[in-house]
């Protein structure tokens, strides 16, 4: 493990940057094949720096680095292009996705499927598509990728398939339960889910307004649980901006 490793032109995104010392940056990247990876970009804040304008969030990049320590050194970053910059509400949603990844993804744990979903979601946000279905779909993909075993089309315990016309609720860490089952009364208020909505979510179909509303409540609850009650700054700021 003592060999100095080099990786060149890896597909990645910048999630966030922090100033470091007088002229450098710590760059939190999300790479396809090496997961979330913090990199030190030496001299990146100097006026003439070649990577200064490139290390921007929401743009597909080709990233190179080397090093053996926990904090590796960025050796190059190139713009892959092909995508407009995010703007307006899409930009705020982008920050939300990045904050979720920064808080929930462990370091150096590859998630190529999630990476592709992220790239696809950012592209859709840049195209100005409706944001709510994109966010719910990404939240679900993230929780599934992190191994929280979200099964939405099978009843926990009994193994029965969820029925279109049935009524259910969801218990965190346990799964979908039938509403008329023995635990019906102790269900968390607001956690009622229709079979139709659960099946749609399981098929990643958030086109129906009712599904979307139920998914929003469910995802909020799940994320709150896995974030350990931490507040998301991007959500707080989005709410404050809408109140202006």
């Amino acid at each position, binding site marked *: 493990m003592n060999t100095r490793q080099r990786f060149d032109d890896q597909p990645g995104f910048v999630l966030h940057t922090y*100033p470091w010392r*007088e002229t450098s940056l710590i760059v939190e990247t999300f790479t396809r094949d090496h997961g979330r990876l913090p990199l030190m970009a030496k001299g990146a804040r100097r006026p003439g720096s070649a990577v200064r304008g490139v290390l921007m969030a929401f743009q597909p990049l080709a990233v190179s680095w080397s090093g053996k320590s926990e904090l590796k050194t960025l050796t190059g970053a190139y713009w892959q292009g092909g995508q407009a*910059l*995010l703007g307006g509400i899409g*930009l*705020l949603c982008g920050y939300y996705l990045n904050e979720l990844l920064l808080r929930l993804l462990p370091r150096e744990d590859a998630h190529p499927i999630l990476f592709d979903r992220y790239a696809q979601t950012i592209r859709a946000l840049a195209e100005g598509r409706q944001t709510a279905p994109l966010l719910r779909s990404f939240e679900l993909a993230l929780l599934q990728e992190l191994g929280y075993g979200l099964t939405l089309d099978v009843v926990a315990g009994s193994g029965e398939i969820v029925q279109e016309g049935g009524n259910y609720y969801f218990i965190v860490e346990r799964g979908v339960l039938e509403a008329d089952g023995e635990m019906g009364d102790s269900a968390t208020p607001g956690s009622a889910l229709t079979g139709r909505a659960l099946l749609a979510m399981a098929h990643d179909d958030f086109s129906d307004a009712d599904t979307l509303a139920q998914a929003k409540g469910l995802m909020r609850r799940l994320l709150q649980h896995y974030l350990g009650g931490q507040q998301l700054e991007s959500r707080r700021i989005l709410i*404050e901006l809408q109140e202006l």
Partner: protein
Amino acid sequence: MNPLDQLIEALRILPGIGPKSAQRMAYHLLQRDRAGAARLGQSLGVALERLQHCARCNTFTEAEICERCASPQRDASLLCVVEMPADLAVMEQTHSYRGMYYVLMGRISPLDGVGPRELNLEKLIARAADGVVAEVILATNFTNEGEATAHYVGEVLRTRGVKVSRIARGVPVGGELEHTDIGTLAQAMVERRSL
């Protein structure tokens, strides 16, 4: 804590200054430039005591309203919003703008926890709605944070009936396409205008 450690600790509050740099600065001040150090200490005290945010443009000033904001030579119907005082200074160097300014002293940055409350955007909203300002020009940076700031300030002011514009971006004057950075060129294509 002895006075030397206290000084080193105090210098560390500067952005980007770690313990080593702070130590170097402290030794330099005490050993090589004691007169300069005295001047630094004095001016820091005076600045802290005398300077405040201008009631109109938010930059630092001794008076309640700074000289630029009080000047009758400037066009009070135009209000240019920038992130930092350095942005104002460079804008002034263009000699092509004779309106007023508002300096945010930052930008919206959700992942750094900086939102409308931290930026005190209410002050800007009140300033722009003074009845004299006819157009607000958003000159925040063309970074994601600068764009988010421009978008939200723009939306809020528009709903209050203020005319809002954003400075243009694109290929630099005298710039050749071959030597223009890819991001600028890509966005210049997206934001092309008809002739």
